[in-house]
């Protein structure tokens, strides 16, 4: 049988680094092929080469048995290759229907309109794939899972022989992941080869027929999914003798409460708050004690952002009571442009937090010597590699940037620290390092802050948290210790459960997923 995609010795360089180094890869028609590797291993680069978005520097690419030199995405598209990017490429104001039609040239009339029969074809295709899509809702009002289904439908409208999905599960709750995989299996059964780029081992093993592991741009192994364990794959990803301790899925939970409960550092009582985008807060109550990590799980866009800005004191509640320390640390979700300024030195980034504090002033002047001392101490304490006060933050790796931000936010407030998806986009080693630093901060005894860990990564929540709550549509549902497992929490994330005495409106059931309703 002819391979849907075949790469031989494909090399792609960026400057001095080989993102792909003589990689061989083969995708059979109708198979789901998991592509694994750490950040920077070359997974996305490989997918982008196949999708025609990057031209390889060396090697041969065959699609459907024909040798091609892909120069553009349009060419790849004409050959039946479609890619669903990690960051969706949808027009927010357009409806689902309009987005699908926009991407597919065969939908257009010569004068720029949309063919009358195209709507029917879209509906038929969606029905055939059993893909529940909202065609008449503007994409900006859809939840992530709905948007993803529009992306997938968009990609599958033509004669798609190869479907590339870049980290499609990163944004989904466990149950939604199941739904996605069911769709992918149907697509594959119809003969389309699917490349599933992912970093969660168990998910890939569940969905894929074969898996390929890349490490630092090199091919490491390709195996039948049935014949390999998660452990073997993990070792292959990081190299033998890697960082197994930090791999997700383990889940050492429940540090338990010590006898004399430490002081409460922050408390929300029935707090409601509006949000400009996404969900606000609706009657949220919580209390954080010194030295504990309170994990807030949930699908993105369910009010986490509002919760973080209320806790950090950037937003006042519309209703309810918030008892907060004068200042709270906040490790925001975006490093670049929120947590730090790339063009600023480490000292200047530290100054962002302390420039208004009396201890760092001398008369009208900002006491840079003092700031630099603090920055140097922070670099040491947080183990910021290749960092020094005068080094531009933009030159640090993501993990070291995040360690710096964490240290700075601890410097800002020793009482409350809000960590919002602190390891998002980091590779395994950096993830481990950042998690270590965050747990270390919680162990400062009398000086330890209370930490609120907001994360869409359930493994991260389970691994680090002393207590767990789930955020759904602006409400916070506490999870009893006996339910500290992915299945139970996943159910709550989708708003299916009603634990913690939280009432659930009918709208929570009408659509599995995290649709953000306005208001």
């Amino acid at each position, binding site marked *: 049988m002819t391979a849907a995609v075949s790469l031989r010795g494909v090399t792609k360089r*960026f*400057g*001095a*680094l080989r*993102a792909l180094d003589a990689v061989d890869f083969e995708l059979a028609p109708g198979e789901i092929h998991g592509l694994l*590797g750490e*950040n*920077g*291993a*070359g*997974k*996305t*680069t*490989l997918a982008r080469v196949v999708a025609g978005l990057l031209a390889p520097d060396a090697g041969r690419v065959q699609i459907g048995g024909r040798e091609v030199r892909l120069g553009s995405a349009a060419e790849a598209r004409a050959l039946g290759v479609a890619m669903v990017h*990690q960051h969706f490429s949808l027009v927010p104001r357009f409806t689902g229907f309009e987005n699908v039609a926009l991407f597919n040239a065969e939908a257009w009339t010569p004068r720029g309109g949309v063919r009358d029969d195209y709507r029917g074809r879209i509906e038929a295709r969606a029905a055939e794939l059993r893909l529940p899509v909202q065609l008449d809702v503007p994409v900006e009002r859809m939840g992530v899972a709905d948007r993803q289904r529009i992306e997938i439908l968009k990609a599958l409208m033509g004669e798609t022989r190869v479907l590339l999905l*870049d980290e499609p599960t990163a944004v989904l709750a466990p149950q939604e992941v199941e739904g996605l995989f069911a769709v992918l299996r149907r697509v594959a059964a119809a003969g389309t080869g699917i490349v599933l780029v992912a970093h969660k081992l168990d998910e890939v093993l569940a969905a894929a027929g074969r898996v390929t592991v*890349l490490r630092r741009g090199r091919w490491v192994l390709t195996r039948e999914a049935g014949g390999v364990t998660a452990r073997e794959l993990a070792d292959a990803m990081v190299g033998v003798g890697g960082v197994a301790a930090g791999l997700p899925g383990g889940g050492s939970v429940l540090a338990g409460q010590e006898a004399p409960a430490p002081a409460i550092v922050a408390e929300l009582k029935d707090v409601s708050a509006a949000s400009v985008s996404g969900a606000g807060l609706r009657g949220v109550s919580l209390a954080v004690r010194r030295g504990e990590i309170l994990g807030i799980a949930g699908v993105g866009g369910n009010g986490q952002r509002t919760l973080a800005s209320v806790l*950090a*004191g*950037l937003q006042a509640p519309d209703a309810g009571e918030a008892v907060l320390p004068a*200042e709270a640390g*906040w490790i*925001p979700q*975006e490093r670049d*442009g*929120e*947590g*730090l*300024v790339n*063009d*600023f*030195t480490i*000292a*200047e*980034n530290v*100054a*962002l*937090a302390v*420039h*208004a504090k009396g201890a760092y*002033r001398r008369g*009208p*002047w*900002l*006491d*840079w*010597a003092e*700031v*630099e001392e603090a920055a*140097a101490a922070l670099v040491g304490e947080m183990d910021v590699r290749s960092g*020094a*006060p*005068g080094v531009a933050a*933009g*030159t640090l*790796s*993501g993990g070291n940037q995040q360690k710096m*931000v964490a240290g*700075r936010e601890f410097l800002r407030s020793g009482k409350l620290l809000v960590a919002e998806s602190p390891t998002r*986009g980091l590779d395994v080693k950096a993830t481990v390092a950042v998690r270590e630093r965050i747990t270390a901060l919680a162990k400062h005894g009398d000086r330890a802050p209370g930490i609120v860990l907001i994360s869409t990564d359930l493994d991260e929540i389970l691994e680090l948290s002393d207590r767990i709550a789930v955020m759904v549509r602006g409400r916070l549902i506490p999870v009893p210790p006996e339910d500290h497992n992915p299945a139970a929490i996943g159910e709550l994330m989708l708003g299916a459960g009603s634990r913690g005495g939280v009432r659930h409106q009918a709208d929570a059931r009408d659509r599995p997923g995290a649709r953000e309703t306005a208001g």
Partner: protein
Amino acid sequence: MSDQSGTPRVRADLRPALGAAAALLATMAIAAALLALGGHSPAVAFGALARGAFGSWHNFISVTLVQATPLLLTGLAVALAFKARVWNIGAEGQLHAGALAGVAVAVSVPASSAFLLLPATLLAAAAAGALWASVPAAMKTRMGVGEVITTLLMNFVALFLAQFLVHGPLRESRGVFNQTDAIPAAAQLPTLIPGFRLHLGFLIGILIAVALWLYLARTPGGFRIRAVGASPRAAEVSGRFRTTPVIWRAFLVSGAIAGLAGWIQVSGITHRMYEGLSPGWGYTAIAVALLARLHPLAAVLTAIVFGALSAGGGAMQREAGVPDVWVRGIEALVILAVLTVDRVLQTIDRRAARGSPRAAHSRA
């Protein structure tokens, strides 16, 4: 750390200066080519230009530095605003507003003491410039209207207002020319060196440059301006301060300095306000600021460069027969060259620093 100066930005980094030099060289090369194409000898033209600007103490002090003064002040105004990512294209209008206010106070307040009148006029000019900048500031912060358009349009309002005033209410009492009465001696800035036209305004410009540099590098308020300019969102999230007051401050201080530029020119040189007071200093100021990489101290140098261009332009016309408009063309070329060189340097930096595709590739 090796950095003992206490300022965070002092890394032994000469790249900005090299970049500026490269931009100037590129401009000169292009200008030379264009001059040659136009049938002029670049050597003769540049020679005349250099002599006009630097040929004698008189040329340097009484022409070049005098020309540099309004360029320095407006350049500083633009640099400060740009530092906060406030794209103030309105220095020209703010300059006119300042000149008008200064003249109005000078001719209407019957004070004979320079110690009273000069500060009063300077204050009035700064306030008028700030007022002129406050309209775009309010539109930006309250309604989200882009300041590039509003500051630019306010220039025309100021120019027409000046035209109206010198034709009407502020017209000289003789009623001969369309200009104001001469300002009293008490409102005139003294000259610095006997026998030369250079006046106290140049020193004021240098003082403001030093003050702005200290402000930006060493004070919490200046740090906030830099933070907002670098990343407004990070300023809010990590800096925990509201950006609106910082943006207002940038607008107002920028407008005030530009306002001073206008009045200082009248007070130090022309002693009257008339139509066409400025040949477009407020626009050349953008080139001054960009070539200085928005650094206030470097702006002193770049203002002198552009002052020299404008001083030498006259000589180039007289001696080499090259029309004065060439100088305007060169100014525009400098802006383009600075922007291009910046982009090239950024690319080189990125290649060198990353040496790897981390950014392109971090999602893999």
